[in-house]
């Protein structure tokens, strides 16, 4: 199924004092099977666009076409599923079965077929059907509730699934599970539209990123294309993924690497191949040239407690400058050690432990600052 959004405008509370344009001249074409991240600052129109694609609000002007039919009717929208933000707030069923069966029953799936549908959907979200079947959804844990809600959308067997900030409020394990689920749903041929605040998630999983700002599409392309437009993203109050900042900073400081990576894994590979092209002595020099130990020392002294206040008054970028040098050095040294272990690139899980620890152990300046605004 193809979704065509053609010059769509949407205005909230038209004709009143609080009239606001939520979408402004949005045109998009989404093919079956795409994996799209929809990103934008709060109030940029992401959720409105999601509601519109699910047929819950109509455009004020412009048109929305599903497949090649130019008259979207209710049954067509049945193939678009929407997982709302905090979906567990809409639960009402007396049992997990009732909750999950609600959607397909509304769509006219005969009672006899419902148990099979529900079982399949619960399996998809890794909940043992027999164990949860009769339990009250209200008594489950937060993560389990989220799974039940996602299952209740999967049970309607949509061709397109829109997730509105699905990882909000989940712990790290929950987020990892969710990413895996979303990738799996996509690999089964479903179109996935993933609304997120998290640039790392977007860079990691999406093959296409659409950026909204004040109801307009400002960027639309592959993660590499989108995150290359630093200025546009900055204007839209968005950051670029940490990994991308890292390789670009290294490149700016003179390291001989492409600086194209947007995911942690690719950044790691770029750094690794940059270092592998040199022998041990040259590596030492190279690293020292880019992040010298003198610089490290001066950074350490500048980050002593008495200068904490001063640091708080620094802008995001200045904070980033200060923290990066140290992190860069740790990361590059880590990478070098791994590079010495053997000529073979490390296995995937090794990459994660090596690279993510320096990244995730320290606060990420850009994001921390932006969230507070």
């Amino acid at each position: 199924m193809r979704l065509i959004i053609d010059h769509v405008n949407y205005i909230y509370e038209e004709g009143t004092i609080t009239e606001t344009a939520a979408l402004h001249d949005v045109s998009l074409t989404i093919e079956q099977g795409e994996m799209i991240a929809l990103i934008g600052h709060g109030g940029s129109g992401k959720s409105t666009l999601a509601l519109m694609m699910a047929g819950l609000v109509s455009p004020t002007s412009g048109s929305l076409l599903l497949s090649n039919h130019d008259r979207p009717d209710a049954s067509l929208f049945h193939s678009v599923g929407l997982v709302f933000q905090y979906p567990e707030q809409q639960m009402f069923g007396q049992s997990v079965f009732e909750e999950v069966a609600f959607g397909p029953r509304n769509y006219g799936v005969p009672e006899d077929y419902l148990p099979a549908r529900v079982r399949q959907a619960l399996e998809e979200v890794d909940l043992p059907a027999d164990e949860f079947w009769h339990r009250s959804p209200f008594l489950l844990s937060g993560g389990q509730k989220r799974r039940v809600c996602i299952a209740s959308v999967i049970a309607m067997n949509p061709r397109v699934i829109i997730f509105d900030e699905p990882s909000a409020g989940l712990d790290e394990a929950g987020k990892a599970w969710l990413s895996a689920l979303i990738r799996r749903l996509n690999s089964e041929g479903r179109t996935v539209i993933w609304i997120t605040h998290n640039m790392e998630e977007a860079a990691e999983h999406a093959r296409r990123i659409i950026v909204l700002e004040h109801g307009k599409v400002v960027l639309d392309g592959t993660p590499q294309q989108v995150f290359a437009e630093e200025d546009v993203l900055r204007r839209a109050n968005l950051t670029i993924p940490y990994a991308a900042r890292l390789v670009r900073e290294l490149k700016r400081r003179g390291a001989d690497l492409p600086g194209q990576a947007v995911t942690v894994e690719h950044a790691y590979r770029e750094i690794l191949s940059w270092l592998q092209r040199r022998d041990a002595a040259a590596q030492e020099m190279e690293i020292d040239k880019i992040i010298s130990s003198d610089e490290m020392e001066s950074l350490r002294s500048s980050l002593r407690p008495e200068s904490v206040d001063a640091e708080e008054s620094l802008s995001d970028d200045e904070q980033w400058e200060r923290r990066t040098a140290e992190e860069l050095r740790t990361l590059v040294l880590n990478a070098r050690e791994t590079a010495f272990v053997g000529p073979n690139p490390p296995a995937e899980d090794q990459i994660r432990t090596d690279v993510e620890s320096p990244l995730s152990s320290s606060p990420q300046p850009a994001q921390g600052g932006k969230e507070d605004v």
Partner: protein
Amino acid sequence: MFKEKLLIGQYYAVASPVHRLDARCKIIVTLIYMITLFIANNWLAWATLAIVFLLALFLSRVPLKSLWRGLKVMAIFCIITVVINIFVYPGEHILWSWRVLSISTEGISHGLAMGLRLLLLVAFASLLTLTTTPLALTDGLEDLMRPLERIHVPAHEIAMMTSIALRFVPTILEEFDHIVLAQKARGAKIGEGKLIQRLMSFIPLMVPLFVAAFRRADDLAQAMEAKCYRGGKGRTRWKVSVWHRYDTLVLAFFILLMAAAIVCRSIM
């Protein structure tokens, strides 16, 4: 959606002489105005009251549009009242009649007066809420009810409950809108079909709404406890309302207006 339809006279934030008035003054004045509306019994008095209202509206800088948004539903009610009165009110100068229905000049006059009074009543009351923040309003109510505490009326508690209820009306409406959308996304057909089906279709809306409301109440109770809320005793206010001479003048004006209406009534 539901939100915009239901909010009658939601606070309109501008600076104006009417906004500046003490909430207590505005509450009393509104009551006096309402009483005066029903004391008045001739067109001259009604016209005066209408002019007073328009003056207050002008001074309040509330656009007619915002007022009208809240009045729409009431306006329909007023029109029905006018029409019924015109047809049913007995009069001597009959212009048109058919079986029990008749239109007389007295009927028209009476019907229009009735409609005008109702409209002014609601409009003036919504002007109160349009120009007073819910917080100031409940504080004002609390102050006015304070004398009743001697006969064990829990003035503070009533005011607190009122302000919490008012505070959560928009929140819960917004939540309701959200739940409606979410259930529609799951194919729910709301308010369709036969009576039983129609009633059943509200379960998926009501259960989450109540769950959310209870959760909110719980959170609020905990937050209040965490801030050591112990009822009204010994509690001070951040914004203490001060009664100015200006308030006394406005109050005096409305008392005079009522007195004039009483005199007018006894003369005519």
